[in-house]
Structure formats: C-alpha cells, structure tokens
C-alpha cells in the first residue's frame, strides 16, 4: 500500500506532507510518557504483522491492518504508521522518503476515521456487532486507503487514471481478507485482553 519515490507531483507531495504533519501533531499532542512504549511496541507488532502473508486463492497478500491500528491507537495511528513506514523506507526501500507524507496520510486517515466510526460498536455489549465493527474497520480502511492512493495518482496527472483504477481493483480481495481478519482479531482481543481496545481512552 505505498507509492514509491519520484511518481507524484510536487504539489501532491507537499499537500500530503502538510496533512501528515497535522495528523502527527494531533497524535503526539498529549501523549503521556507512559504511552510512548505502548504505542511504539504495538507499532513494532504492526510492522511485523505487515510482513505476514496470507493465501488468497492462487496468490498470497500481505496484511495491512491500518484499520485495526486506528481502532487500537486512535489519533496515535498517525505517528505509529509514520514510524513504521519510515522504517520500511529505510530498511527495505519500500515506499520512499519524499512520499512519506502522502503514504502516511493515505493509510492513517482511514484508520482514524474507522476509530471514530466503529469504536463504539467494537467496545459494545454484543459480540456479533463487535465482530461486524471489526470487519467494517478492516474492509473500509483498506478500501479508503486504496481510494486515496488512486486520488493521489489522479491529482498528479490524468495519465495515471488507468493505473490507479487497476491498483484499486487489485485491492478488492485484500479488503475482504482484511475485514475477516480484523473481525476475528477484535473478537479475540475482547475475550483475551479487552484493555487493548481501550488503550487511548
């Protein structure tokens, strides 16, 4: 789920950087010292989870889990995803440094949105609705992320429209898998460690 170096136009890069800076400020503001290791080690877990491949028919896809990240961390999803993407850019050259702003926003904005939309459902009484909230989080966060990637490409130039469309279509099965996984994750966490779903409160 990232756009590599050198593709996007300067205004898109600058816009993404500004939006991500605002998101980082929102995420870091009021983060108490005791929250720092919590957010950081959960970010390590998300980093490791993004290296896991799951089978999808004849191919395999790697997990994104940005929605679950938002559900657990709220606004801290911005610094969490930013740090993970920076490490991916430095260690594996996935994505890139100039595209960090755009890529962070594309993944973290849907994550924060899902936090506000589905957190009440996920923390509510009914296990079935909580699962549904988890599914919706995984499904929507990847879908919106792919749509934002498409938008970043489309804003760079109309030449990218077809490529953006194909990239979005490729995300459809991923949305479904992410939805299922996030739903089951939420069910598990509610049973085993419900505090995690209350980290930011």
């Amino acid at each position, binding site marked *: 789920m990232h756009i590599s170096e050198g593709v996007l136009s300067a205004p898109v890069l600058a816009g993404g950087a500004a939006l991500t800076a605002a998101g980082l400020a929102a995420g870091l503001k009021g983060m108490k010292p005791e929250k720092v290791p919590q957010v950081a080690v959960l970010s390590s877990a998300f980093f490791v989870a993004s290296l896991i491949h799951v089978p999808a028919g004849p191919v395999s896809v790697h*997990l994104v889990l940005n929605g679950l990240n938002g559900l657990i961390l709220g606004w801290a999803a911005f610094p969490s995803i930013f740090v993970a993407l920076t*490490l991916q850019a430095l260690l594996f050259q996935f994505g890139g440094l100039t595209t960090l702003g755009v890529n962070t926003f594309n993944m973290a904005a849907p994550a924060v949105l899902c936090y506000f939309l589905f957190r009440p459902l996920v923390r509510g009484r009914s296990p079935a609705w909580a699962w549904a909230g988890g599914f919706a989080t995984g499904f929507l966060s990847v879908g919106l992320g792919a749509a934002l990637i498409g938008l970043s490409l489309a804003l760079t130039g109309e030449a990218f429209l077809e490529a953006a469309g194909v990239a979005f279509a490729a995300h459809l099965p991923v949305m479904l898998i992410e939805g299922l996984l996030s739903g089951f994750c939420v069910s598990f966490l509610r049973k085993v460690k419900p505090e995690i779903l209350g980290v930011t409160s």
Partner: protein
Amino acid sequence: MHLEVFALGDSTWHRTDPRVKLLGTAGFAVAVATATRFTPLVFALALAAATLWTARLDRRKLWIRLAAVNGFVLFLWLFLPFTTPGEALAQWGWLTVRREGLELAAAITLKTNAIIMVTIALLGTSTIFDLVHGLVHLRVPRRLVQLFFFCFRYITVIHEEYVRLRSSMRIRCFHPRTSIHTYRSMAYLVAMLFVRSYERSERIYQAMVLRGFSGTFWTLNHFHMHRRDWALSAGIATAVGLVLALQWGRSVL
C-alpha cells in the same frame, strides 16, 4: 531478523556523521522529486550511481533491492506510454504509444532510482540507532524520536514471538489455505502478537520508571563534525545546487 543489511562496512559513507547524511539525503530527494527536466534527472542518477559505488556494498544484495524497487516502476510502464494524452509515435491496433507518456515513464524511472540509490548509500550505511541519535540533534520532536527508537528496538523481539507462535501452529498441523479457518487462525495469531507486545510495553515502562525515567531521553554522546564531514557536506550541497540549477536555471549549463 537481520534488518540493517548495508549498515556494516568501512567506506567513507559508513564513517560520515549521520546528521550530514540525513540532511544531505533529504535535500537531494526533494530536489530530484520536484525536478521535471531530463538534464538534471540524468545528472542526478549519474551522481547517485557514483555515490552508491563509493559505498562499496554487497553487489548481489544491492541488485535484489534495486530490482524490487523497479517492480512498481515496471507496472507504470505498462500504462503510462499508452494512457498519457499527447503526440502519437506508433500504433498497434487500439494501442497508441505517445511521446509524453514515454517521457513521463522515463522521468519516473530516473527519479525513483536516483533517490533510492542515494538513500541506500547515505542512510543505509548508518545503523538505525545512529540515525535516531542524529534526529535528536536535528531537533525532531522528542516523542517522535522516542517512538522511532522503541519501535525499531522491539521489531526483532516481536518477530521472534511471531516465529515461535508460527512454529507451534505448524507443530499442530496448521497449513494456510484460502479458508475461514485459516483467516481465523491467522487473526488469532496477529491478535496474540498485540497482546504480547502490549504486556511487554508495560514491563518496559515499569523498568524505565524503576531506573528513574521522567520523560526525557538524555543523549550522552555527541557527534563531532570532522574535516571530512564538512568536505562531504560541501560536496552534497554543491550536487543538490547543481540539480536545482539545471532544473530551474534559465540558461542550460
């Protein structure tokens, strides 16, 4: 899990002050990413390749990295020459190759490779902890640097947890397939990683408080700029200046 593939070595770049490398990479990347003309891009790629050459890294690992990066570029080559509006150069059936599309795809290829090569040569040759240390001195917000530090520190630890959980699943005959059972099991595995990392973070914080942590990371070592660091800074600044001049200057040098 060995992550810092290129960090060990004894080239000039390995010995350079991380602050110089951080600022240099940022300046170069921005100059190249915003350039649109071909002269500065070709110049930048030549420079980047030369820089990478002087870092004396493992060739095979380097080629694998560059090939992986160019995967996305290749994907764009499948579309851009045909979908960009502009002057038609050749036509096969309903496919029309257009000049503007070819130029756009070529420009992206040059930019991507130039920036990636410099990132590997400059930042890849430092350990993450040195870069984090450099970020502190460059006045990046402390909370962000702390997150960065802890996140990297515990990736290997959490990965080991993952490997352990995965082997215990294999011992119980788990084979991943396209099935709800697989997705549920993988979800529980991932959720267990969150539980473990959450509990570990509590212990980390307690251990820190026990040792008197009050919210600040003190830096004990300070970097010293040597004459070589200043010379390299001047060299990088000149290179970035030349890329900018070739792009935005009126006369062609």
